[in-house]
């Protein structure tokens, strides 16, 4: 039979699901009357549901397999859309207009939510330099974010320095910390690197939490001033809108710089480093320099995002810089497609905005989140918008090489 294999597999899966869900779907203990209610009818529901879902799932997978065999390199529709100038130019224009009129159309709350999302766009793009381009798996990216936030808060508290002065200072300090972590881990790759960076972030967080005289411990620092606007006093609403435009501008800068970096000499060196370390040395790339610049330039954006975060919330404490945050930023990069700038922007917006707008389902948020991640990994293993290296087209077969 044509579907024998699928039917067999689906039957097993259905039985397995029945077994798994038996304790919660069938057995119901009534602790007051001390009786057990056996809801056998639920078994049928679970079994049939699992069977049907699994069957169609397997059919889909089979179809996908056969289609993959015939067309080895298929460019996805989304990728094709964003690479077509006739589509992406007007789309970019519309997005730009939307971004500009956003605060005028939507409420103060929405503007705040969007500002937070834009901070994550910056963080995602920064981490993309480390993970997506240079292939350095960093699980402690939040440490640089914390460095930025605390450098603004502390330097402002002690020396009264302003936001604009401290924005570059925060970025530089974070880059410095990036190099600091980079040095000891130069020889590490993959899992080992991930563990060390994770440890670094935890150490930093614990220091901030416990060194009361320096960082005010878990109670954090409050009354951090919002960024000034030519000395004019702004109401909280105006300030939120100002913050929003500030982030739009800085995100634009981040996108521009990371794009240029990606297609520069150093960007190619990072990609070579990610692909093959030995070959990368054999072509004359300074491995040490390439790794350290990746750490420093990646960390720099986190530092800037940290300063903005501190300025936006006006209060920071170590609880904002836990491992959850690192995991979130990393999932933005993975979900969006490593190395793909539009993908990461999309993923950052999706991951930060969806939970806000899905408050109705807040009880199931983590379930939905996990399901979304799994579904994306199955259907689009390269990320929402997988990175495709720039390709040059030639109009004549033997035209002179570009670049």
């Amino acid at each position: 039979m044509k579907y024998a294999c699928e039917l067999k597999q689906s039957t097993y899966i259905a039985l397995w699901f029945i077994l798994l869900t038996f304790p919660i779907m069938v057995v119901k203990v009534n602790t007051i009357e001390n009786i057990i209610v056996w809801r056998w009818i639920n078994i049928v529901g679970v079994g049939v549901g699992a069977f049907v879902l699994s069957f169609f799932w397997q059919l889909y997978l089979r179809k996908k397999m056969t289609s993959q065999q015939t067309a080895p390199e298929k460019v996805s529709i989304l990728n094709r859309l964003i690479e077509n100038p006739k589509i992406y130019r007007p789309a970019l224009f519309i997005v730009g207009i939307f971004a500009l009129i956003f605060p005028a159309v939507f409420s103060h709350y929405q503007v705040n939510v969007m500002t937070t999302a834009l901070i994550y766009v910056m963080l995602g793009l920064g981490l993309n330099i480390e993970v997506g381009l240079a292939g350095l798996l960093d699980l402690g990216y939040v440490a640089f974010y914390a460095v930025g936030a605390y450098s603004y808060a502390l330097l402002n508290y002690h020396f009264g320095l302003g936001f604009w002065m401290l924005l570059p200072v925060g970025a530089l300090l974070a880059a410095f910390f990036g190099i600091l972590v980079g040095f000891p881990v130069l020889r590490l790759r993959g899992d080992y690197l991930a563990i060390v960076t994770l440890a670094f972030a935890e150490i930093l967080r614990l220091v901030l939490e416990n060194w009361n005289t320096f960082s005010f411990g878990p109670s954090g620092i409050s009354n951090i001033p919002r960024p000034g606007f030519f000395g004019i006093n702004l109401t909280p609403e105006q300030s939120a809108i100002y913050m929003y435009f500030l982030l739009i501008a800085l995100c634009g800068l981040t996108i521009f710089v990371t794009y240029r970096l990606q297609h520069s000499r150093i960007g190619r060196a990072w990609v070579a480093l990610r692909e093959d370390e030995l070959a990368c040395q054999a072509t004359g790339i300074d491995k040490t320099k390439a790794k350290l610049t990746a750490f420093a330039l990646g960390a720099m954006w986190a530092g800037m995002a940290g300063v903005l975060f501190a300025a936006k919330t006006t209060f920071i404490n170590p609880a904002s810089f836990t491992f959850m945050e690192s995991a979130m930023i990393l999932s933005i990069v993975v979900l969006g497609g490593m190395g793909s700038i539009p993908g990461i922007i999309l993923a950052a917006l999706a991951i930060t905005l969806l939970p806000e707008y899905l408050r109705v389902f807040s009880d199931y948020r983590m379930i939905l989140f996990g399901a979304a991640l799994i579904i994306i990994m199955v259907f689009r293993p390269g990320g929402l918008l997988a990175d495709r290296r720039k390709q040059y087209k030639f109009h004549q077969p033997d035209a002179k090489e570009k670049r």
Partner: protein
Amino acid sequence: MLKLVDVETCYGSIRALKGISLSVAEGEIVALIGANGAGKSTTLMSISGITPTCSGQILFNGKPIEKTDPDKIVAMGISQVPEGRRIFPKLSVLENLEMGAFLRNDHAEIKKDLAYIYNLFPILHKRRHQQGGTLSGGEQQMLAISRALIAKPKLLLLDEPSLGLSPLMTKLIYSILAKINAEHRTTIFLVEQNAFLALKLAHRAYVLENGAITIEGKASDLMHNENVKKAYLGI
């Protein structure tokens, strides 16, 4: 041009090279042959600076390079084609070649050299937009050699260029190596398991055994040396 004096290289407590001395003159093709684990690849890695030596001297044009970083050594004019090709699988053929020209800034010259390479290996031109990983083994070897060539090396180090290739492909690669040497006077230092092929191409050769050089001489002499014949040529 290249001179190794009593070079020792260790992996932890294991001495892989037990004081080897050899020299390569400009314009020469020199082969280093030997069995598995003799230390052939280690010799190349030590010259490239990727595996640091523990004692001895490596001189390139009279300058000691044993303490120099790998990237500086490439900049001095020593390019290696690593064992097992090691191309960048996710980058296109053209991008792989561009990585080879990483240290060069003379764009017009790079274009010329690119044309020269496409002329040497026309298949690379045909495949220039394909991902490196999708090439066949022989094409990958061509790409690896081209990637090293485009850096305009004075000395080309090759680690087993015949590894995993069909006899026909091996022959092609070897004929092109001879051509590069003849046309550009590029000095070639070659490590090879396939002793017969290497001896046919090379001017001079060294035999490496357990980290020490046991026989050296003109390639044509080695071809008729009884010990070499028995151990490596299977005659």
